């Protein structure tokens, strides 16, 4: 478990990062928290010729919540998200999701940009960002571009990142005040990637009707999946158990789910339904309480 030889470049600012990427393009990998890249290199699953270490680009590490938008720098450690008051107040889903990421030691190193760039199926933060209204800001020497999460993550371990690009920032449009979030994950051990996970945020209008519902699932799916049809079906009056179960059943039946050696497809679908139903109930009940109060 030693990596193949590689050239190591450390960059201190975004300009140097942009040029290094322009120079080495597809032959390079970015080293942020290193919680996935380093083991993958040690296993020689990947053997990049160049590793560009951006840990000293301090300008990429920030959480900035203003108005209805929260901006998170790509180098922001998971632990910073976990500990952030504004995020836990305004965007509780992300805080709940991040607590399911491995253990604290990993969260001290792992970064928002890193987990997005890897796009590991079953990873928690991509699911939370897919469920919320999130844009990803990418940058290269050629310029900057903005992609919605759905256009950014294309599948398992597959994103729209070009070789010369890096993730600069994540922009989340906050759920409305009074919303409730629920992130429900199933894994056999605490801290593992999800066998199945569901993320739901719900909010009500002045009349107590569900007017904001966001739902997504991951685990057994390639990319995390936003369930827009279910969101529409369940908005409005509170669904009873039957309507909710039907919608959940339809939503999971409609998505592509992969089985593997450990967890066959039918089991994954069963669990996806279970976690989704739990997360929906939690969030809908939670948002009701807020309205009543």
């Amino acid at each position: 478990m030693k990596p193949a030889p590689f050239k190591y470049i450390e960059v201190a600012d975004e300009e140097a990062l942009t040029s290094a990427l322009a120079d080495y393009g597809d032959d390079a990998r970015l080293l942020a928290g290193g919680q996935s890249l380093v083991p993958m290199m040690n296993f020689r699953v990947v053997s990049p010729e160049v590793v560009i270490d951006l840990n000293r680009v301090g300008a990429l590490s920030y959480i900035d919540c203003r108005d209805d938008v929260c901006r998170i720098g790509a180098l922001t450690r998971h632990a910073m998200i976990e500990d952030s008051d504004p995020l836990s107040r305004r965007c509780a889903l992300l805080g709940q999701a991040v607590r399911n990421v491995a253990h604290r030691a990993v969260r001290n190193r792992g970064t928002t940009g890193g987990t997005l760039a890897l796009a590991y199926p079953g990873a928690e933060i991509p699911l939370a960002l897919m469920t919320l209204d999130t844009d990803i800001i990418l940058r290269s020497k050629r310029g900057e571009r903005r992609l919605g999460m759905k256009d950014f993550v294309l599948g398992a371990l597959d994103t729209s990142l070009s070789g010369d690009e890096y993730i600069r920032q994540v922009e989340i449009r906050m759920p409305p005040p009074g919303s409730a979030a629920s992130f429900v994950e199933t894994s056999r051990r605490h801290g593992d990637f999800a066998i199945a996970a569901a993320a739901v945020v719900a909010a009500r209008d002045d009349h107590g009707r569900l007017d904001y519902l966001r739902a997504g699932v991951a685990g057994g799916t390639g990319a995390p999946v936003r369930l827009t049809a279910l969101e529409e079906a369940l908005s409005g009056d509170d669904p009873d158990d039957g309507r909710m179960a039907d919608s959940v059943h339809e939503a999971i039946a409609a998505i592509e789910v992969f089985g593997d050696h450990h967890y066959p497809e039918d089991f994954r679908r069963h669990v996806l339904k279970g976690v989704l139903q739990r997360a929906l109930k939690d969030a809908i009940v939670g948002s009701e309480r807020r309205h009543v109060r």
Partner: protein
Amino acid sequence: MQIDRPFPQIEGRLEDARLLFGRGRYIDDLPVGPSTLHAAFTRSPYGHATIAGINKDAALAVDGVVAVYTAADLGAVLDPFPSIVRGAPEYRGIATGKVRYVGEPVAVVLARDRYAAEDGVSALDIAYEALPAVVDVDAAAAETAPLLHDDFGTNVVWRNRYRYGDPETAFREADRIVGIDLKFPKYNSTPLETYGVIAEYLPETDGYVIHGNFQGPFSLMPVLARALRVPDSRIRMVVPQDIGGSFGIKAMIYPYMGLIAACARLAERPVKWIEDRAEHLLGSASGTDRNSHIEAAVSRDGLVRAIRMNIRENVGAYLRAPEPSCVMRSLTTFSGPYRIESGEIEAACVLTNTLPTGLNRGYGGQQYMFSLERLMDAIARETGIDRIEVRRRNFLKAAEFPYRTTTGSYYDSGDYHGCLERALDYLRNEGWERMREELRASGRLVGIGVATCVHSAASNIGYVTLALSPEERAKRGYNAKSGTNDFAHIALDASGRLRVQIGTAGAGQGHATAVAQIVAREFGLGVRDIDVIDRIDTETTPWTITTGTYASRFSVVVGGAVQRAAARLADHLRIIASSLLDAPPDQIDIEEGMIRVRNSNSSLSLRQLAGAAQWNRGDLPDDVVQLHVSESYGAPNLRSPDSENRVNAAATYGFMADFAMVEIDPVTFVPRVLKYIAVHDVGTAINPQLIRGQIAGGIVHGLGGALYEHLDYDESGQMMSASFMDYLCPTASEAPQMSIDHFDAKSPFTVLGVKGCGENSAMSAPAAIASAVDDALSEFNGSIAELPVTPPAIWRQVAGAS
């Protein structure tokens, strides 16, 4: 002279400061010279394939690579490792002609550092022609199965049948026959520290120096010496001061010691190899997985009269020493804590395209206890008698000890009813049953499970020879095997300080602390007044064939030797003091560092006595004895097997009463162990804190096998759990809340009254947890027959029931 006072205790352990401040010295900490080469293995990516060709050129061209050796090269200096079973297929530790499991070594690359060695591995060009693989033990035993070793003609590498008492009559007269089929999984020990070897060949003596984190048993040293073609004593085996966990797996490093030593000889330079985690999962060793049928002849009132069992044991791609010992615990303690006087066991070891097996904490115990305790639960279910009551009815009674079982095991002592009652006290005081009802009422699936098991300890090396038939053992020229023994050395220096030397190859158990307690008690000193050196260098440390840390033997065997050495040194000191103080030796007491004449003011300090004996030797009478003593101790009652395959397999037999509480998520079917109770008879407790640590670790090890850990393979022989992403070791988050207590049914036979405690719930927890899962799923009428209990497995069972 008998000293009767409690063992002195200390906070923490003597080892703690060294280990906690990072001053442990492990294999990878040992300094090596600049000429040392670093090894990396090329391992098979196939479960089963012919090696069509190996081209070394590209690997040798890599900067820093010095040599590439294959089986053909190593064969010049390394023979196959001898097997316990005569005629078993050759095992060389490296593939010859074919690869037979994923991860099997195919070549060794030696380079100036590990990075270059791994670059060489990446560059090495090996052509394979894939063959059909077989990984399931029953599939491999079928006549049509692909053959692992073509010349051997079958994958069933060993089989034997054992019969005790009169099972035919018992089954004929039984009111009921209860039978179940079970599957026990393949998993291992997962020590924090992986294998490591540093070897050097000494041409001037035709000998080897091998540093390795080898835990013993040292009966494997002659196996290694035979393969390396040298007399036993030409291998200087040095075990580093610290081993980062062993748990049985570190016995199975021996083939790698052979391979690296052979590399050192061919390269004429020292060679170092530190196994990495991926290699450890793919290529170290594991416990066996087992398919079995077990059935009991049961009377109307739930008494088990006899057991019949059929065992198909998966030993992986090679049968290597000490296999087939993995099945022997199923014979030697087949009746567990119960009075079962007849039994018939058919056992077969089968070769498959999986990692070869070896010791894993409990070595065959967990497999068997899972069978027997699943059977007791099945008997309870079928007779309608409560699970605990069935066990009670079958228990041996306290007055029956010592008790000779039908297989020859000589149970030294016990109070199974009393120990179980103590465990039940915990269960009642903690309100387990109320908690279960409350949680169930709120819609959760919760169950309580039980296992009551016998913990044999300090094994008789003779049990290994049950692999041979009585006829083979009766042949002229056959050398019988029996016993277990070890050494201790103790010395008083001129300043009056005691120093003990042992060689246990310990791995963090706290052996030095326990030894210091034994000696401190004898001399009435504090634990920290004793220095303990626990190190093995076979050139200077006394050792025996049975040396090592395995089979929960430390406190019985090494503890016994230490106690004897300490007592004999104390006798010597009394004789010296008798001369100095002019009083008879039996009137002299030693305590708190003072030597006192009983009922008098006459005394001298240990320091004065040592000083006089060292500096004023000439003035002492000639027969005055030395200030250092070596003692060996052989555990009692251990003979070689008789002509009926009866053998007392261990020096002592503890008892374990375990309870587990399991919760299963009713939607995702993820199981968790919430609580665990373990009350174990460990005999006299030298250090309750160390015992507690052993049992807590054992519970979590057993939890791994019950719910999480599985070295599983797909049909092509690919390992599906080759990293910690898929090989799920329980972490602190998964550890249950534990109530641990020990129950002292002192052994009448061992020196200190101690019994072993090292394997403990690693053997019983899989059974207790399976029992709890059954209880949690009671509304679905299922019964767990296979481990680990995974969410998809529970889902299938529940879906099948509803």
